[in-house]
């Protein structure tokens, strides 16, 4: 491992470690309605809004009401986004005269941006008007992570025996207190590094060699900031963060990595503060953190060793540079990809379809697990779901009724957690099987051999995990994939959350059992080890067969210099 790579990881891990406590505590204060330093400028504004809408911030919703408000609001946004995309041609701020977006692409885009997936079956620079980019899609990049955050906050409140709170209050606070202030700061850092931020139109340039070039511009820096802080991942252009306009330097790359992880990691600590179980929070952070580093190693080392077939051509050096940008360096590229997959952002700084097989295996693993800090708030929910399942397994092993945070975990809770857990592999495996069986699905394959299978599997997994990155060769613009992946993103986002809300409701109803010497502790190395073991074993059992057909087959064929 080179010094540059070590330097990147030291900064990334260091920043997360230093910020998680103050940021996590700050988020906990905001959502416990304790005083914070932004009260003075923002509270009059927020309370004005609540008064205007007739919302009483102190009146709590039930778990069910909270869930319904959350899902209705989200669906209203998706429908409106669809309508606005269909009307693109008639709407203002369209300097490139982009026509209306076709129905299935509009459906795919509205659902995917409305669920924080940001799967893109189009190239932004030649499909979307400035209004669609900023008025429509950037709006969703703001509010969908806010919704993800409210899910986690409400669930944490239920776990700590408090009232669920009010969805609309949480939504507004998530925007004004968390996302907006951070976005402004990082957007300006992005501009400093060279990302354009202008209301001017695309630039038509005559080059010195006599050709012409059209350079896309717009308020891209403000887009990049929320794209990454909200773990959205929808790029302004097709190449996303590989495009030098979106991510110009090694430093901007580092900023984007930090933006992606800042909030998902801090949310784990927020759990500790709000439940009073800081040690448990550290245990969960350690489990997810070690997985993050393991994924990082799997992403990085293949790049460093190179492609055996290309190495046989005898070039100078063997670092794999296919589909990567030079300026980031291998360490920077690997840190970006590890983060975008772990935090389910889905923006890319290198071509995932050209990535070496073990690197791809790491990308898949992150999406299967979906809890290596995960998307804003949602990764925490997934981790807690696995905690409930682990507590249950431990209870079975020692023959005690399992407890979690003083509440007995019984048949109903375990059933709900299991449903939430199984939904993810169900969507991925059934969706992939269907796509492989149907001629319409097979039509989307670009690369031959196991890589072609991986393209389909990756697309479906990306939708189910609400990640949004792709193996770019897949014909994502085929109506079949636009519709299928659109549907999968919606189920993947909301179905397991509903199960988790029902779980919260049932925990809230239970009486607290005081901890005794016989209580299994959900913290410390022992619990962390069993949790990590359960996570790995459950996922390996579920996904090993498809991995054997995809990246693993590809890996061994490549070692044997076998091409298709």
């Amino acid at each position, binding site marked *: 491992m080179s010094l540059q790579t070590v330097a990147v990881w030291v900064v990334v891990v260091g920043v997360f470690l230093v910020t998680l406590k103050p940021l996590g505590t700050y988020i906990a204060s905001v959502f416990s309605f304790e005083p914070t330093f932004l009260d003075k400028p923002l509270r009059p504004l927020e309370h004005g809004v609540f008064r205007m809408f007739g919302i009483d911030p102190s009146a709590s919703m039930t778990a069910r009401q909270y869930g319904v408000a959350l899902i209705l*609001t989200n669906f209203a946004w998706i429908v409106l986004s669809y309508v606005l995309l269909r009307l693109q041609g008639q709407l203002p701020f369209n300097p490139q005269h982009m026509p209306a977006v076709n129905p299935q692409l509009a459906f795919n885009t509205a659902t995917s941006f409305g669920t924080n997936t940001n799967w893109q079956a189009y190239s932004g620079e030649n499909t979307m008007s400035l209004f669609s980019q900023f008025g429509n899609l950037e709006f969703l990049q703001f509010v969908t992570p806010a919704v993800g955050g409210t899910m986690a906050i409400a669930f944490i409140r239920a776990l700590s025996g408090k009232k669920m709170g009010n969805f609309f209050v949480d939504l507004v606070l998530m925007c004004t207190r968390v996302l907006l202030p951070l976005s402004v700061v990082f957007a300006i850092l992005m501009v400093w590094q060279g990302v354009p931020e202008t209301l001017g139109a695309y630039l038509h340039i005559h080059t010195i060699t006599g050709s012409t070039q059209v350079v896309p511009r717009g308020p891209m820096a403000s887009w990049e900031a929320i794209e990454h802080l909200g773990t959205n991942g929808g790029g302004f252009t097709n190449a996303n963060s590989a495009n030098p306009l979106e991510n110009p330097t090694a430093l901007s790359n580092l900023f984007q990595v930090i933006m992606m992880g800042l909030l998902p990691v801090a949310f784990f600590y927020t759990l500790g503060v709000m439940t009073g179980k800081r040690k448990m929070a550290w245990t969960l952070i350690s489990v997810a953190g070690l997985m993050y580093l393991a994924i990082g190693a799997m992403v990085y080392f293949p790049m460093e060793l190179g492609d055996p077939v290309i190495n046989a051509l005898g070039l100078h050096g063997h670092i794999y540079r296919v589909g990567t940008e030079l300026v980031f360096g291998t360490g920077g590229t690997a840190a970006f990809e590890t983060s975008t997959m772990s935090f389910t952002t889905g923006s890319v700084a290198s071509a995932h379809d050209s990535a070496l097989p073990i690197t791809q295996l790491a990308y898949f693993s992150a999406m299967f697990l979906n809890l290596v800090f995960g998307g804003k708030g949602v990764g925490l929910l997934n981790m807690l779901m696995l905690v409930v399942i682990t507590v249950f397994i431990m209870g079975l092993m020692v023959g005690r009724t399992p407890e979690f945070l003083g509440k007995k975990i019984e048949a109903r809770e375990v059933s709900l957690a299991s449903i939430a857990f199984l939904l993810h592999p169900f969507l991925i495996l059934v969706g992939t099987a269907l796509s492989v069986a149907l001629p319409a699905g097979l039509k989307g394959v670009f690369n031959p051999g196991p890589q072609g299978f991986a393209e389909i599997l990756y697309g479906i997994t990306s939708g189910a995990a609400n990640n949004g990155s792709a193996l770019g060769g897949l014909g994502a613009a085929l109506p079949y994939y636009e519709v299928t992946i659109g549907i999968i993103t919606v189920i993947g986002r909301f179905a397991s959350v509903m199960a988790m809300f029902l779980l919260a409701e049932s925990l809230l109803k239970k009486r607290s059992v005081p901890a005794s010497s016989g209580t299994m502790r959900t913290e410390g190395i022992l619990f962390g080890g069993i949790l990590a073991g359960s996570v790995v074993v459950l996922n390996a059992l579920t996904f090993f067969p498809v991995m054997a057909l995809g990246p693993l087959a590809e890996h061994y064929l490549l070692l044997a210099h076998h091409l298709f």
Partner: protein
Amino acid sequence: MIKHLWTSIRMLVLLGILTVVVYAAVVTGISQLLFPYQANGSLVHYHGRVIGSKLIGQSFTSPKFFDGRPSAAGYNAAASTASNYGPTNPALIKEVQANMAYILKTNPGVKPSQVPVDLVESSDSGLDPDISVAAAYFQAPRVARLNGLPLSSVRHLVATHTVGRFLGMYGNSYVNVLEINLALLHLIHHRS
């Protein structure tokens, strides 16, 4: 239910104003004030005319210029894309071999073991504006010969256009192809 929906829709308008209009206006305002050069696309001028953006690579087809990296997008800035060839796709190896053949043809006398990887493997964006420092020095003899310049002055050009790693540790050091080619033009004009 209906009440929630009505609140949602009003909330949409309000948050829309906040996150789209106010946010973009604040960031654009501050950026245009503090970093006008970056905020407008890092434009490069030549004889008073905008001839490109520093961030976007261009296609330099004449061997008299420094070559950039191979591009699946043909350096079309409005359609950024990668080749997306998978590692076991023969097309990937063919592409690398074709790029290699071009390099060996335009730089007579070099051996494959001297060719830097970034000159034969294409980027993700198809718009990478940079090449490695090794790739720039590698091309210096050809550029010097075809432009009738002394090798030492072309090598000097590379040295002055090398951008080091950030803080000596982050990213790769590189040479911006558009900028070094403009400096090359400048050098040619001032010689004659």
